[in-house]
């Protein structure tokens, strides 16, 4: 089926079988930052933004994106968050990182400063098999505070 949508701000037309996941479709379109982990919604590595909210790219069909605005980690406008991940070494193998960034970005846009418990809760849907959670939470906390002028 023909699917017309916006992908990272660009008008995009693809051909997709109904069974193709949105995560596979964006990878086929060249945005391979979206990772397929478990393919049943548990690991969070495939998290994308569709019409402004985070969704599992493996649990949505590409044909369902007709007319939607889809953003992958490549199109994620959060340079401060990405820089904080680098600064804190908040990634080891990096496989979970795109999903962590997409998930954290949504929390950071919520308009308040989450504490560490809330950050952990929000990120609980993403697995890091290197168990790098401490540095990831550090990064998200730092950005949350910086955006609200609480800390440099």
């Amino acid at each position, binding site marked *: 089926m023909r699917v017309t949508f916006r992908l990272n701000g660009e008008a995009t037309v693809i051909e997709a079988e*109904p*069974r193709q996941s949105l995560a596979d479709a964006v990878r086929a379109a060249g945005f391979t930052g979206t990772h397929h982990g478990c*393919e049943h*919604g548990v690991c969070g590595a495939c998290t994308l933004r569709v019409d402004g909210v985070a969704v*599992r790219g*493996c649990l949505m069909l590409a044909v*369902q994106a007709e007319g939607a605005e889809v953003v992958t980690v490549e199109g994620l406008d959060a340079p401060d968050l990405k820089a904080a991940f680098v600064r804190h070494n908040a990634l080891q193998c990096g496989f979970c990182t795109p999903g962590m960034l997409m998930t954290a970005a949504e929390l950071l846009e919520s308009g308040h400063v989450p504490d560490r418990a809330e950050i952990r809760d929000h990120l*609980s849907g993403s697995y890091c098999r290197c168990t790098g959670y401490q540095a990831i939470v550090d990064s998200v906390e730092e950005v949350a505070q910086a955006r609200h002028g609480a800390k440099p």
Partner: protein
Amino acid sequence: MKASHFDYVRVQSVEDAVRVMADSDGEARFLAGGQSLIPALNFRLDRPGLLIDLNAVTALSGIRREGDHIVIGALTRHAEVERHPLIAAHLPLLAEAVQHVAHSAIRNRGTFGGSLALADPAAEMPACALALRAVIHVQGPKGRRSIPADAFFEGSYATALAPGELLTEVHIPLPDPAARHGFAELTRRRGDYAMAGLALMAGPEARVVWFGLADRPLRDLGAEAALAQGPHAAAAAALDGVEVWGDLHNSAETKVHLARVMIRRLLERMT
């Protein structure tokens, strides 16, 4: 894994959805949020010939008050239930419980009606529907009907929905203003399905509903009768004579123990 082949159609109305389903000869599935259906397809636990996508049926979405009821459209996302002022004001049990449904990205897509129609025995929303005396409205080839939550959940992933029927909306009576609520669940990871879970309403019309313990959400009449005598009495009476299922991780005995500690602690927190 990848799903096997299926066809896909996006419908614009409940009538179209029901008609296409009736024409499919049992080969089709309704696709709402898809947060459980798509994994089932990816694992090839299910191989339907056709998915009928309901996501464009706007009439199925939304939360409103109708007299002394709150009406929740079947396609309403968990995230909308989580932040809706009517739910916060009138159904705080639901507002609290929905935060335990999976994770943010899944709540953004998963639907209230889909959760009830699936009837996962360890899921939060079916237990809340039972605790809140919800009435489930459905539409099918033979017309519309409504089913009380007490009669809706028939077993593991089994409901009173007849073949071809679509769950359209859920009517929940406003609880007595004196009612209090409690919710607790025990999971290995926040957002996972419950090893043992509890949704309860205390007050004039007490309801104690367990989930994750048996093949369906389970009303506990013994614990309800003992609620007024305090947390210890309720815990002692809980699950008496009820057949609890063990699973891969916990025996039935362990689950009963966990559940009794859970209800005692929850009631102590509430009082």
